[in-house]
């Protein structure tokens, strides 16, 4: 187990290094940051000077080496537009993104699993058909359009839910949370649905297909032949077996949930890292862009690792230690 972990950690570091290099070398092409730093009537000579002092004239590899050195020492640089340490900006924005991603994932998992189970168990009912049809909307319309439609319906027309932002937040140490206020909870609803809809559809369809397959397995037939109640057969045996692959997929999807929050955060003006990233792209704020991509890579690699570990916990067949029982 320790060797396994160690190997994964080394791989993770390699992945991060490669992501860093790719991201960094490509950002050079994303536009000229100097125009964002200074106002429009700054003379060209001054622009050139700033460009030089930022080291933008140096070879890419040198710039990267300098950057990597800083990152290792925990310095992510200063944002060009905010004139603040990137690490501090990201730390401020991270709770918003993580809370949103968490709610979206919970929404996707709970609703997706429930609907998927229903569709598998009552596969011929009209409601199952309806669920499947409705769920397709989640993957057939772009996220941003769904978000705007939700705002139009629930904020503008009905006036029930806020259209932007996190509402009131409560500070717990360096973390800010929207879970503890009424307005904070209300503000989470629409963005979570928007962000989670795609995953929900995915999970629902996965659960349905997986469960249909599990229901045909011998051990489910055997469980029924043993006279177990339908409830026990479906919810104990079938569901648990269904969830093993679903956990993997859902876990791996968490990385893309965080990435896709870029869109949701833009639509709902959610003050998270995705919004920061989009603003950074628009303003060619290279330190933020690099740090964001590194962070996403880090989160992803971590999730990957956790999912692997979780997998062995749920599925006894993969438990290495039990092989000698």
């Amino acid at each position: 187990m320790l060797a396994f972990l160690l190997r994964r950690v080394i791989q993770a570091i390699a992945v991060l290094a490669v992501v860093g290099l790719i991201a960094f070398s490509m950002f050079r092409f994303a536009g000229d940051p100097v125009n964002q730093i200074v106002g429009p009537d700054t003379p060209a000579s001054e622009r050139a000077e700033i460009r030089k002092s930022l080291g933008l004239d140096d070879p890419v590899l040198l710039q990267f080496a300098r950057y990597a050195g800083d990152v290792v020492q925990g310095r992510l640089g200063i944002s060009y537009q905010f004139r603040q340490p990137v690490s501090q900006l990201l730390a401020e924005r991270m709770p918003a993104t993580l809370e949103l991603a968490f709610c979206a994932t919970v929404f996707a998992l709970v609703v997706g699993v429930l609907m998927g189970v229903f569709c598998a168990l009552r596969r011929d009912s009209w409601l199952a058909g309806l669920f499947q049809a409705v769920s397709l909307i989640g993957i057939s319309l772009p996220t941003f359009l769904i978000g705007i439609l939700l705002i139009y319906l629930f904020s503008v027309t009905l006036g029930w839910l806020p259209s932007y932002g996190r509402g009131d937040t409560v500070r717990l140490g360096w973390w800010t949370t929207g879970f503890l206020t009424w307005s904070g909870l209300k503000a989470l609803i629409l963005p979570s649905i928007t962000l989670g809809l795609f995953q929900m559809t995915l999970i629902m369809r996965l659960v349905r297909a997986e469960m249909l397959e599990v229901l045909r397995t011998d051990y489910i037939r055997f469980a029924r032949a043993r006279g177990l109640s339908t409830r026990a057969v479906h919810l104990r045996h079938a569901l648990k077996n269904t969830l093993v692959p679903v956990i993997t997929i859902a876990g791996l999807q968490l990385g893309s949930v965080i990435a896709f929050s870029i869109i949701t955060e833009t639509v709902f003006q959610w003050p998270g890292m995705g919004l920061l990233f989009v603003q950074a792209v628009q303003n060619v704020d290279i330190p933020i862009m690099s740090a964001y991509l590194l962070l996403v890579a880090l989160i992803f690699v971590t999730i990957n690792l956790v999912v692997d570990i979780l997998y062995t916990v749920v599925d006894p067949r993969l438990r290495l230690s039990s092989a000698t029982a």
Partner: protein
Amino acid sequence: MSRSTLKILARGVAAGAVAAFALTALPAQAANVFRFAFQGDIKSLDPYSLKESFTIGMHGAVYESLITRDKDLKLAPQLAESWETPEPTRWRFHLRKGVKFHDGSPFTADDVIFSAQRVRAPGSNFQTNVPGDAEFVKVDDYTVDMLLKKPNPIAVYQFSGWYIMSKSWSEKNNATQPTPPTAAAPSYATLHENGTGPFVITEHQPGVKTVFKKFDGYWGKVESNLDEAVFTTIGNDATRVAALLSGEVDWVDPVSLQDQQRVNSSGTATVMAGPELRTVFLGMDQWRDELKDSSVKGKNPFKDPKVREAFYRAIDEDTIAKRVMRGQATPSALLIAPTLFDRANEIKRPATDLKRAKELMVEAGYPDGFSLTMDCPNDRYVNDEAICQAVVSMLARINVKVNLNAQPKAKYFAKVLSPGFDTSFYLVGWTPSSQDSHNILFEIAGCRKPGDKSGRGGWNLGGYCNPKIDTIADQVEAETDKTKRDALIKEGFDTIQADWGYIPLHQQALAWGVSKKVHLVQRPDNMLLLYWVSKDPQ
């Protein structure tokens, strides 16, 4: 996890929630809070860091300048009670007494001298707001002289953007220099303010939210009845309008053109659509000997005034103003807004004439037209990309095939402002920062010369050049007699038009969405100034 642990946890969460409600519920009740949203954000609280209208306006709530501009954009006293020019190169300012900074320290001449030095230090984006060669001299604690090398009638025209900072506070917090973009650590002044204005900033999360509160120790009377103002960035057009329509915010800027009718019919909010100072125009590369990305090889069609005239006459600005801008634009003959130049209405816009345009193309030797690339921002000006698209289809009628390269402003400006000005045909909007025509004649229409560090022609991206303009610009700068000065300016603008040097399109209208509960002042420079904002109490 056992059941009892769960219970304890649940209780803990519930208690936390109750406490949080109690904390957040209290201050919101009594205060008169103005909530407002803009498409961009307040990037830094350092008043010398970024020259951008909205940011300057926000800084204006907490910082003050010697001379400000009133509701009609006329110069007005603020921290200077009065000023005079005893001789053409000496300006004397009499400072207001009894003014306190937000940290309680008094405002004196030392702060002015300090600010004059700081605003012109490297890293400041406002270096040109104060004449670079001016020397500031303290006469006494409440009198300051500004000594110029040569007479300059408009020396104080940009003073309204030069906010006065506290010397002692800046020294104490190690913020005596503007935060340069290359700084390894953020300056204290980036995140904190200490002005003399009627509001203080109590919370500032860059890119998220900024909270203003009334400053009780303010020296003057304030029109505003606000206790608190909360600023949020909302970048997405639809979300911003939704927030206004649902009553979550009281003010938004901008309201996109197509949503204005919806806002006006909402019953709770209206669109304030005054004329803006910014002029949107098209520029043509008259510099290169061969256009980039064009079908014409070996020569530059834009060097022929006939081609420039053909373009001018083919583009139907009236239809653009009516359809693309939905009437929210004023077609313009000049590169400057008419409010900024008194004789503006004497210059008329040449009429759109498709037939003449086609003839001109034949005369110029391009009966079958040609192709070229047009650069256009898609997130900078009102409906910028739509305007460019309309231009493209209008030019198609004189057989000019335009490849439209519409990009976000970061990429767009990076391209057109790159050394060598990489563009053949482009759209730009311009507000003279001095609010004076000289700026146009100097920066937009002045000849570009390699190695020239004066900044002349700095935004003349197409390299239009008529030496006569440069002569006029220099005369305008030194001329103190308004009539003579206006005549010179008019001659300059006439020359640009006769040369078909630029294609001015329009002044776009401001588009503030304002709740009916709110009363405020809209100036053509598009600055929201909180001290003129009032809100009906609940």
